[in-house]
């Protein structure tokens, strides 16, 4: 069965690029526009990986990571946070909240697939 990825980003450009790249790499991709939507998706869908932006309205990425780690359905799922270069503080925030790793924007499709494969068995 194809691995399922949830991409959470308020930017459609980013979601599109993640979706395109990962579906090309054989993933099923589901989308959410913010943390709140993401949690609602996770309530009904089992995913193998979450890729989330940090800056989002309603619920930001760090809070989402905390919520997922504190919940029961997806607490063991790898979570990658999207950061921009120089966003060390964000990386640290994400890590502290329980993220598995991060992807630095901008990323090439290769890099994305590589990082995803790194954390998603």
């Amino acid at each position, binding site marked *: 069965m194809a691995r399922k990825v949830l991409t959470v980003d*308020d*930017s*459609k*450009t*980013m979601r*599109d*690029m993640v979706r*395109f*790249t990962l*579906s*090309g*790499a*054989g993933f099923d991709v589901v989308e959410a526009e913010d943390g709140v939507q993401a949690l609602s998706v996770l309530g009904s869908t089992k995913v193998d990986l979450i890729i989330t932006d940090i*800056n*989002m*309205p309603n619920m930001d990425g760090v809070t989402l990571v905390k919520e997922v*780690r504190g919940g029961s359905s997806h*607490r*063991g*799922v*790898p*979570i990658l946070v*999207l950061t*921009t*270069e*120089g966003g060390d503080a964000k990386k640290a925030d994400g*890590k502290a909240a*329980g*993220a*598995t*790793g*991060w992807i*630095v*924007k*901008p*990323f*090439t*499709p*290769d890099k994305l*697939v*590589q990082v995803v*494969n*790194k*954390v998603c*068995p």
Partner: protein
Amino acid sequence: MTGSSFNADDLAQFKQTFFDECAELLADLEERLSSLQEEAADSEALNAIFRAVHSIKAGAGAFGFSQLVQFAHRYEALLDRMRDGLVEQNERVADVLVRAGDILASFVEAAQSEQELGEDFGSEVGDEIDLLLAEIDGLESVLTSEEEQSDENSDSEGVQEDQNKSSCTYLIEFVPKAELLRHANEPLLLIRELQTLGDLQTECSLERLPTLGAMEPEDAYLSWMLTLKTDKSEEDIREVFEFVEDDCELKVSAIAAKDSGDGSLSFQIIEEVTEESEEDQATGTLKSEKPGAQSKAAETSVPETNPSDAPKKANVAAPKAKTASTPAQSSGVSSIRVDLDRVDRLVNVVGELVIAQSMQAQEAEDRQNGHEFLMNQANEDMSRIVRELQECVMAIRMQPVKSVFSRMPRLVREVSSKLNKQVRLLTEGEQTEVDKTVIEELADPLTHMIRNAIDHGIESPEEREAAGKKGTGAIKLLARHAGGNIIIQVIDNGSGINKEALLKKAISKGIVSEDAKLTDEEIEELIFAPGFSTAQAVTDVSGRGVGMDVVRRNINKLGGRISVQSVEGKGTCFTLTIPLSLAVLDGMLVAIGAEKYILPLASIVESFRPLEEQLRALAGGGEVVSMRGEYIRLIRAHHLFNVPGAVTDPCQGLVVVTETANGGKVGLLVDELIGQQQVVIKSIQENFDPVPGVSGATILGNGRVALILDIEQLKSMPVSADNWKSSSSEPLEQQEASPANGEEQRTIAPEAMTDTEGMQVPATV
């Protein structure tokens, strides 16, 4: 560089999404920034501004718009400090933010049109940001952020260039902390990844494993000693552990195999990884002497997870997406994002339409059975649904005027500060929706009108106070729906139009004759006259060679009207009335001879059949008809368009009184009114020379073409048809009596266009 393995089509598609998104983000940004001048932004507003800039930066990075990224990066840095409460919000900061927003928009625009902006474009604002940042947290931060960026670049290049083939052996000690597993990091995956780098020997330590009772199932207890022979650098190895750096104890040390001959190994830790000879590589292979202690992890057969496999698949999938993206390829494509509700409604209505249609088809079959009632029912349903369908489709193109209105606060601030005036802008009805095309066309006229209002309308604070007004002037921009139109008003409480000065100027410019007696309304109308400008001196604000005549022309192009009311000393109000959509028109179908024409319903005031004594002929060939004491110019439509067989006696036909944009009335003589009809406007300009008096054409229910009359143009056409047909000097009566001579005249009847339009339409019924 980035995005290199997306093909061009995909990239174009993503870019389109990106620019659409940018437009939305920039509009939002603009709106939020403009409210900064009113009050300091709260944390929610700051977050939203930050997110907008951040999203633009992230997307721009993906497409390699480096100028845009660099600027956004500085902008973002400042906003970030503001979010942290490190920056005091004052006028200077607000000003920098607003200007930076403009620069950002310019960068986006340049990226979209694939233009390069100069090296130092926006550097002034950029420097100001840097200055602010430096004040906030010292110069270092600016420098570091720049260094970080350049590091990042050299990093990515370094990885590619690092093809150093010489091999080295590393000893890696990997001791996960308890929480590593809770972050969903998997040592097995890390070990697999290491294996892709070279020859890996693993040794697992169970030392830390507690007794079963004390074991926390989610904690990590195993640790590993790994030996890797690879041509990669230590950084590459550390990169494997990038995500778990803080979740483990990691030691990576380079070892060299000394004494390679006898197979017994003695390790020597060396300081630097230096080039090793080929011999060393050949003999330096390490063998673990304790196979029994090999970890479970390494025993698991490790598949070749070659990261480059996946992108290959991505490329295979690409051609599929290609067809879908073709429309987005051409750079001129624009798209809109539509509320899902609207699309749902559309789908529902289409569904209903299909049902009604099948009902009708069924009924047509059963026609013999005399089920006429049902047939009528089906027809009624059908027309209701079609109407609804049309509304749905049009609603998809509808957008709130907010996107234009939100640009105005900045304009007001800029212009008023340039002119040293104090102006407050109030907006109302921003959510009023209108067709996207109309919105796009509205920006220029509104910009011009607001500039004018500040420049010519609002007085300086001193003048205002002297006149007993508040020092701060106000401009109100409001929008609302009225019928099938959107009404937009620009109201200022400035000095109003000085009619005397206006008239004097018009006379001096030769626009009106000296002895002309004009009503107040007519004088106000003069500001729309071509080449008219009341500004004493041409300022760089509104004196740009375009006047209100251009505004009026733009509005007319949209099928709209503009009018002005003004009270001297109190203020001025410009009213724009624009149809909601350019695609359809509420029309009145009229018959002139055998031809049918459409009059825009909105322009019709009333229609009546005049009595003999209501008609007056004027010297020079003109005719007027009096209506309740008001004289209205009469235009014989049949004459104008040379339609044979039409009613020529106004007392036998109908005079349709129409009102033009500026309130002037003309009466149009037609045979009869047929009925009100919503028509789809087809441009004839694309296929036919411009025809005076005609704004477009439409196809009627019976397949015939009907021309849509342009009242504004009709009005400005010469008084009588005789004058218009310059070659003809025959008296009116004679001409009418001999319609046969129409051959030598220009015939503007639908027949003339059936071929050119490419419509297979019978010329006559």
